[in-house]
């Protein structure tokens, strides 16, 4: 029920936007009235409504932070221990 998908806002007309979800899927009529968003930004869309503008930099930061601190970690064997 709380599934949400990220997509890029292509255009906005009033409360509604056209959003590109990648892999050739774009949808019109996504309600963007619950967020402050501009075309080109990424939103998380839940049941037809954008619930957040996604922070691209933060998405990068979390991964590179963990890549860095785990750089010298020896991976476990294939069976998990």
């Amino acid at each position, binding site marked *: *029920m709380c599934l949400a998908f990220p997509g890029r806002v292509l255009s906005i007309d009033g409360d509604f936007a056209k959003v590109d979800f990648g892999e050739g899927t774009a949808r019109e009529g996504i309600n963007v009235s619950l967020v402050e968003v501009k075309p080109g930004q990424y939103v998380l869309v839940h049941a*037809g409504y954008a619930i957040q503008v996604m922070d691209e930099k933060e998405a990068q930061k979390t991964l590179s932070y963990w890549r860095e601190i785990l750089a010298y970690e020896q991976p476990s064997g294939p069976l998990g221990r």
Partner: protein
Amino acid sequence: MTVLSILDGYRDADLAKKLQSRINRLSEKIGRNILIMHVCGSHEWTITHHGVRSLLPENVEVRAGPGCPVCVTPTADIDAAVELALDGKTALTYGDMSRAKGSKQSLAEAKTLGGDVRVVYSVHDAVKIAKSRPEKEFVFFAVGFETTAPATAYEILQGPPSNLRFLTCYRYVPSAVEAVSRSPDLRVDAFINAGHASTITGMRAYKPCFDECHKPMVFSGFEPLDVLISVAMILRQICDNEPKMENEYTRSVTWDGNLKAQETMWKAFDLREGYWRGVATIPNSALDLKAEFSQLDAREHYGLAAEPASEGFVKNARCADVIVGKIDPPECPLYMKECTPASPLGPTMVSSEGTCKIWADHRIISTMRCRA
């Protein structure tokens, strides 16, 4: 690099293995059993689908708590929706909700008895359908958490058509986490909090609960590495004996949350006491329509009586224990015997966010886990 390609990095197998090794080392250092509870059906899906549990050491368990809105929707409300559908009104609801049984039928079964029931993807669809048929009466059976409630609030504030009324059963997750953290018979060591519900409320909404229980709380995203990172964060906190509220899902969750969505939500709803099927009646856990919108309230308009809270599960079924997170699905005697996705006996086997349905879809028939 686009957001979508960055997200691919959250499924990187090499990084997963390194995280696993870090998690193993932390868990050895801790040296006792750790029970981590998450409260979101989407987390349960990610964890099960990507086999996250198979990557965790024996003494670290991640278990599903009350995170499935359809599962906790009271029987009395399903019954009310069924009754309205059989009485000439058109019931509009989400697909999962239409299949959950009340004390007699589900909405889908009411449809086979001649009731008018239509499945919608969003509240906006409900508004559009009602506008297109002004001569008919429509009831939107509105279930979900605070992730979904702001959208309904938006439509309510816009002024929906007068032939559409709302049977709202919205529930507020922070109050449920508080109730679970106070439960005397569940020894939860830490929480993975729901990323999308918290996107709306912000971490701030959980501060009173954290101050009281002082257990690690990590706000997590929904990719497999998001969950592994969250487990590593929790174990590190336990190791350092420094419980905190920590944010793993920084690309969406903030301390304050989505203020615009909150403002919309609190204009339409008040927090009141609410019954969570299988769990308990929890203070400040139901998002009910404000009195000024009573003309849109299906309960008021159709004079639906407030029914006493009752679980209404079938005999011998352990739906309640699965919803609260006391047991895993295979511990229920009906799981994958009498109760299967093809003929579900309880809501946890109906909803795509129900733990039983998720486990059954992934062919998990038994668990060999020994509990301390």
